[in-house]
């Protein structure tokens, strides 16, 4: 295999060039960036023979390295943001991140709720903000190529501190937009939620169809003891985008953490979640609904790491595959010797709608503690014939019957993630699912 490594692809060479051009102008510790980039150079872009990337050959998929996106002026940023629609109906504190840079003029940074402090990442890096010490809480992520590339290239993002005890009612909405020619972005966001605080983070990613953007976004959440953190994400990147994203969630004791990711957009997506249970009696739920068609490829990879005892993790993933698309689910629940009384359950279900679709499931358990209850399940197949027949026998035509069943199949993730009282949020999250299903019919 060594001889394979020596040959560099156009994208690998391109990334090296982009890095040497940009490094001088990127904010913060240049040495740290160089170290991160070296980590990438050591391994190159991952391919099929790298176990973690077995089903997503990034080396083959990434033909070239797009140039880093340029910062837009206020007017252009406002125009770009005007086209963004996701979560628009939700009353939220908005933070716009356009082409990898915070667009202050299009954000509510001046009117933050009590207990919330936000600094831009570029500023925090430049001045060596003390909160940055909370970055990299999950060391396993550092070896990941997508994360390492983000660490080398990150231009901006936000550093959020939710003060101890603050109950933030209004969701904080991170609104990512990429505009213009095909370009690469690398953003990093840190949310430090201090003891006893609660907050909802929502994240939307939008860019135009037909443009081969290459976003690489990292969100790091550090939830201290007794916090409640909800995270809802819609990936609506355009149909030519190659989107890499990483979520790390480092959870203290007695935390209630929830994350949901809805994917309809990009040509290629890899969403990675690292969740570490560092304190006891914490519950963490990771959910996702993925809809792919055409030649799309969507990969969700989870690393759930139980270190502390008495925690509960729940993972629920639904994938619907049409056309010649490919779905990938890799999920590992690891339970350390110290994590007695862990209760972990992971489920991945996929429906294949077409002849050309592919689903790859790799659910894993890695258990070192004996007093645990862990389970995973994976299914893949067609829609249930008997259910379809029942609906059709009631006069519902096949396409509608399929849509109804698929909506409930995918919708279960939304149902579980959002409380019944929050009707607007549920509808907002169901909208992309319904839109995808009706575009199909």
């Amino acid at each position, binding site marked *: 295999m060594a001889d394979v490594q020596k040959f560099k692809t156009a994208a690998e060479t391109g990334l090296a060039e982009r890095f040497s051009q940009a490094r001088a102008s990127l904010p913060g510790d240049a040495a740290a960036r160089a170290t991160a980039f070296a980590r990438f150079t050591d391994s190159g872009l991952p391919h099929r023979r790298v176990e973690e990337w077995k089903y997503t050959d990034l080396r083959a998929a990434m033909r070239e390295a797009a140039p880093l996106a340029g910062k837009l002026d206020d007017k252009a940023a406002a125009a770009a943001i005007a086209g963004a629609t996701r979560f628009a109906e939700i009353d939220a504190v908005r933070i716009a991140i356009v082409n990898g840079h915070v667009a202050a003029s299009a954000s509510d940074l001046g009117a933050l709720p009590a207990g919330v402090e936000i600094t831009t990442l570029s500023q925090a890096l430049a001045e060596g903000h003390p909160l940055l010490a909370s970055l990299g809480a999950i060391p396993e992520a550092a070896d990941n190529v997508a994360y390492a590339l983000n660490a080398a290239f990150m231009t901006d993002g936000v550093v959020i501190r939710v003060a101890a005890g603050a109950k933030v009612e209004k969701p904080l909405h991170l609104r990512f937009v990429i505009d213009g020619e095909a370009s690469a972005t690398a953003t990093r966001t840190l949310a430090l939620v201090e003891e006893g605080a609660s907050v909802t983070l929502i994240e939307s990613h939008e860019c135009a169809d037909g443009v081969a953007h290459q976003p690489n976004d990292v969100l790091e959440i550090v939830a201290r003891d007794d916090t409640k953190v909800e995270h809802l994400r819609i990936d609506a990147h355009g149909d030519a985008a190659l989107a890499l994203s990483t979520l790390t969630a480092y959870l203290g004791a007695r935390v209630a953490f929830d994350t949901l990711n809805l994917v309809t957009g990009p040509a290629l997506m890899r969403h990675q979640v690292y969740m570490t249970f560092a304190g006891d009696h914490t519950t963490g739920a990771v959910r996702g609904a993925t809809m792919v068609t055409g030649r799309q490829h969507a990969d969700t990879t989870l690393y759930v790491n139980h270190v502390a005892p008495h925690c509960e993790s729940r993972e629920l993933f639904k994938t619907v595959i049409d056309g010649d698309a490919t779905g990938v689910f890799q999920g590992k629940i690891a339970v350390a010797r110290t994590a007695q009384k862990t209760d972990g359950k992971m489920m991945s279900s996929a429906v294949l709608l077409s002849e050309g679709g592919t689903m790859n499931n790799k659910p894993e358990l890695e258990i070192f503690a004996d007093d645990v209850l862990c389970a995973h399940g994976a299914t893949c*197949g067609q829609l249930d014939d008997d259910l379809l027949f029942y609906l059709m026998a009631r006069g519902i035509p096949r396409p509608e019957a399929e849509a109804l069943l698929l909506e409930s199949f995918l919708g279960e993730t939304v149902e579980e993630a959002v409380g019944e009282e929050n009707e607007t949020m549920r509808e907002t999250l169901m909208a992309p699912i319904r839109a995808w299903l009706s575009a199909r019919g």
Partner: protein
Amino acid sequence: MPAVQDTIDRVKAIDVDQYKYGFETILEMEKAPKGLNEDVIRFISAKKDEPEWMLEWRLEAYRRWLTMQEPSWARVSYPKIDFNDLYYYAAPKMNEAPKSLDEVDPEILKAYEKLGIPLREQEILAGVEPKNRVAVDAVFDSVSVATTFKKELAEAGVIFCSISEAIREHPELVKKYLASVVPVSDNFYATLNSAVFTDGSFVYIPPGVRCPMELSTYFRINEKNTGQFERTLIIADKGSYVSYLEGCTAPQRDENQLHAAVVELVALDDAEIKYSTVQNWYPGDSEGKGGIYNFVTKRGDCRGKNSIITWTQVETGSAITWKYPSCILRGDGSRGEFYSIAVSNGRQQIDSGTKMIHLGKNTTSRIISKGISAGQSENTYRGLVSAHRKASGARNFTNCDSLLIGDRCGAHTVPYIESKNASAVFEHEATTSKISEDQLFYCMQRGLDEEEAVALIVNGFVKDVLQKLPMEFAVEAQKLISISLEGSVG
């Protein structure tokens, strides 16, 4: 609870170390020079009186092997093996191949007696119902020393002999099927095996024949520093049926010994092969010293329509196990089954599972795996289920359960589930848990001590798989599991 009581008694009867097959037989041996090179391969081939094509085949494999790297993806760790520090051929010294058991060294016969494997037909016949008879091929280090009931099997048209004999006597069958399931360069160990295999069993069941008795091979590694490389080939022709059992043991030694076998099964139209293994190689001592490295490639090809291959394995031995008995479901309507119990204790490392490759239409497969980890062992299930584009109507059901006893061991599950066909339906479920306190309490309240209660519950845990074994094997396996877990409680 007679079974449990019996287990307890047996365990008590054994000394500190629980491995009861650890004795050594002292014999005068003939060996190839230590190390591996083309001359050693020529030596083996000449010893076996092989035709030229076989020697060429071996040399070709050897040259391929030199270019290959040892696999590293399994969750096992061991010091690097020096392949030149091994003997590749060791056989009890005899002037000519024994024509009857009377010519076999009595020490060898004694060894098999001690193992509970009588080789004299009259002894087997005494007190055994004809329907329960088992024909045995006994492989001692590098050679087959005896095959029983050959005559009776021949009357039914069944060929059951050592692979060495098959190469000489049935070259057309060997040429046609050898390496047709596991290609020569399939993997590092399979390629090594192709170059140096010394013996093993050959079975051919003609069309429409239901093999009149169970066939069995008993492998014994006796000699020091010797690798055992056996090769088994079983062909079930159209509409035939065979049930085959495999057992294995080795003396207790401080050094590790290598066992790298290849087993190939071919089932033609409407044929069925049941392959059962009770693997009880020496596992090393409680500190991890010694034991067999068991690196085995087993694969069945459901080549014909509606053919069935079932693998059942009880893995209790070996220091390291690397083994994935698989099925290629090529024929339309064919079926593959894998039932496994893997028990690890002490410092054992097991990385085992199966592959079910669905190629044909309406193929079905079923995987039931039960892993039990105790002591400081590591026990991994690794499996692949895949449906190719043309495998419409494929079905798989997988269930992997792991049980941990104590908090110094590990239990891991690594399934790969790949579907390229919308009408394929795959269901996979896996759980990891410990023995329920409530169950333990219940049993102990009824008067069992903790160890007895654990044995009882574990036997319940593995029952689904035990039921798949032929009767006598099931009883033996049940006892073996209890003994393997001895000392794991408390």
